[in-house]
């Protein structure tokens, strides 16, 4: 099963605005404008390497997730891998 870690903090500039959060990805020069749960996922990963189930458990501790679905989280994570904001290990 895949494990994930956030891109090194030095490669990201994260600026929360109002409903949305800006993430400048230094490696690509691309600005990502993201909504929940992307900032929450990056924060929950911290500097650790986690599998989907462990990450979902951590997110469930912090947030009230009525529809905690590992498959949906895995899809989100794969999108973030494509964007370069998360690495698959």
């Amino acid at each position, binding site marked *: 099963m895949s494990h994930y870690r956030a891109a090194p903090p030095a490669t990201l500039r994260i600026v929360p605005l109002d409903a949305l959060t800006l993430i400048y990805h230094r490696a690509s020069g691309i*600005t990502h404008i993201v909504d929940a749960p992307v900032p929450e996922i990056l924060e929950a990963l911290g500097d650790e390497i986690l599998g989907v189930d462990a990450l979902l458990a951590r997110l469930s501790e912090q947030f009230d997730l009525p529809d905690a679905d590992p498959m949906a989280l895995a899809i989100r994570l794969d999108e973030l891998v494509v964007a370069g904001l998360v690495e698959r290990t």
Partner: protein
Amino acid sequence: MRHVTRLRIGPIGFRIGSDWRGPIAALDDLYRDYPKPDVPDFNVHLFAARPWRRVFRPSVHIGGDFVIPDAAPLPLSMGLLAAEMGMNLQMALGQRRYLLLHASAVERDGKALLMTGVSGAGKSTLAALLMARGWRLMGDEFALVDPASGLIHGFPRLISLKNEALPVVEAALPDARFGEIMEGTPKGTLRHLVPNARAIAAMAEPAVPALILFPSFGFAAEEREVMPSEAFIRLTQASTNYVTLAERGFDALTRLVQGVPARAIDYPNTDTAIAQVERLWRELA
């Protein structure tokens, strides 16, 4: 080039060369009170594609340090417009020092009001009318954000007035200097307005951004708060060099939208718009 002039607009110096005398004479006339740069930042060339096209059905191609391929030439009667488009093009494609916003800007008490929107939203018209009411015009086309300081630098080129804006501004500024009326341009009827003496004298003075407005012409009067995230998205779309500036652009723009209130205003006529702008400025700036 046979004919050459130089001029400085805000912090930017231009050297404009032309195969024809006409566009340079028009520039020298309308920009006669502008300073001349020692070293230009950008070159603009107005040239004939073939030597005989200098005299036979003359058509003006726009060149310079930065060019877009396949740009359509203009007839010689629109040579001044070609020169202005050439200068705008150098800024849009070549500006690296400042974050370029496609916005008009006016200043009062050292603070800048930025207005941005699609073509026809009224950026130039509102800037010209506010100039008539005593605001200092900083520019009708580009506002320059200094990533180092966050300050707005002006770019008070000739104000480009189009179509229905012409009689409105001519009535508000009966003593102002205007260029020739150009009919049938790609944007309809067009006439240039020379910024007033104060705008030219103070053009090197930056201002602190204090209010961002997104005007829309042709609707019932309405106002809406624009959240920082929406302002950020709209301003990246209004910037030609946000991507080029990379992290400096990101820093400059996040700082701007986090520190400056933004409103969208709809307006049915310019009197209404001016009243909305003056009131929002009192409340927010």
